[in-house]
């Protein structure tokens, strides 16, 4: 980790606050993510984890503070939002593949529309990433013809086709049947091993132990605790973290 000292962080959040009407969803969020770093965000439901990562690519706006992604200050300007979105890939809990397009078209649409890639280039890129998530043989099918685990791997490939600098995962395995969780986690582990910067909202603590550089615990819109996984799991500092881990690990 020492090599990254002094380098500007890829993502920098400073005093970020967000409200939905009178409800405060995020309170004083300070978070820096270095290039190549893997962060796991966890916490009880409604703690603001998803809201936090959705602020990073401006699917949600924020009212106070500052977010800088790869040198771009994220404001409400279309130009800043475009610049940030083209560097940030996102994978959703419910996959959100486009059901009326084939797997290949799902992967080529954004590169062709946003990056203005020609079809041949976009398809070559798409086939490369579909091969990487081991689903190339399904390229001409429609999303509904694939299993949940396959769909989520396609969603990862679709995001990778934009060649993002960072990937956000919003509970990527929560909607999957148990036997499909592993294939998606394996894909994410592979991505981590290749050096991708990742922020994952997940309750998969095995994954957190295996790949996270830091585990961050949130509750009620605040970051309560952050630590390397060994420390986080063996010696949690806060009462709320201990309670949460007790509940999460009970079933394991």
């Amino acid at each position, binding site marked *: 980790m020492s090599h990254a000292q002094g380098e500007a962080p890829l993502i920098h959040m400073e005093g970020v606050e967000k409200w939905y009407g009178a409800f405060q969803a995020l309170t004083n969020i300070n978070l820096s993510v270095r290039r190549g770093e893997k962060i796991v965000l966890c916490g009880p439901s409604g703690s603001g984890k998803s809201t936090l990562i959705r602020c990073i690519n401006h699917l949600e706006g924020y009212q106070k503070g500052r977010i800088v992604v790869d040198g771009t200050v994220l404001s409400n300007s279309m130009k800043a939002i*475009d610049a940030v*979105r083209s560097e940030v890939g996102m994978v959703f809990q419910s996959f959100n*593949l*486009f059901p*009326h397009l084939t797997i290949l078209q799902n992967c080529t*649409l954004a590169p062709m*529309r946003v990056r203005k890639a020609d079809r041949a280039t976009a398809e070559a890129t798409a086939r490369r990433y579909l091969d990487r998530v081991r689903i190339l043989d399904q390229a001409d099918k429609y999303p509904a013809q694939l299993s949940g685990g396959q769909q989520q791997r396609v969603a990862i490939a679709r995001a990778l086709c934009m060649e993002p600098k960072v990937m956000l995962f919003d509970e990527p395995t929560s909607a999957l049947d148990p036997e499909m969780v592993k294939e998606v986690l394996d894909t994410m582990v592979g991505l981590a091993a290749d050096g991708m910067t990742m922020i994952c909202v997940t309750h998969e603590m095995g994954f957190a132990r295996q790949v996270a550089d830091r585990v961050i615990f949130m509750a009620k819109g605040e970051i309560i605790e952050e630590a390397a996984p060994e420390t986080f799991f063996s010696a949690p500092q806060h009462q709320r973290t201990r309670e949460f881990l007790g509940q999460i690990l009970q079933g394991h």
Partner: protein
Amino acid sequence: MSKGFGAAEFLFLLEGLKWTLLLSAVAFAGGGVFGLLVALGRTAPYAAVRRAMAGYIAVFQGTPLLMQLFVAYYGLALLGLKLPAWVAVAIGFTLNASAFLGDIWRGAIEAVPRGQDEAASALGLHYGQRMRDIVLPQAFRIAQPATVGYLVQLIKGTSLAAIVGFIELARAGQIVSNQIFEPILVFGVVGAIYFCLCWPLSLLSARLEAKFAAATR
């Protein structure tokens, strides 16, 4: 005087059919284009635009088409707009159809899961690209049965153009019937022609539905 229902009478009905088809085509084309704008306005990110379109829909859904045709035909003329009759009537039908189609498509746009728009946004697609490539293709599939249903209504609704002097299919039937005193026969033929126009549309719609369902099953 009564000479029965012959080729001349049938040709007269077909002349009327010509207007029915023309008015339907113009109303559907105009209603399609402006209805899309109404639907987009009704789902726009700006509250003022949404309210304006809601008002438009309320007025044109809440008043009789017959009255709207009167206003388009006589009202525009009173305002000094000297338009050919068929243009005035086409405007009337277009305004009406765009309110109904706009509301049908508004509902369909809102029925496309929110995550679709979010995923497209996260990939960097702009509003226009998200609508064209992601939201509208799915919305039109959702809206297809209602859209075809409205088109069938519209074809039959063109008979109201008779009120401002168009001899379309229904009015032609009335004229023939008055001449040969065989209302059951004549209106039977008129009804059959309408049916031959509308039924294939419903069949086509059902077939398209089945096709889409198979593709995205």
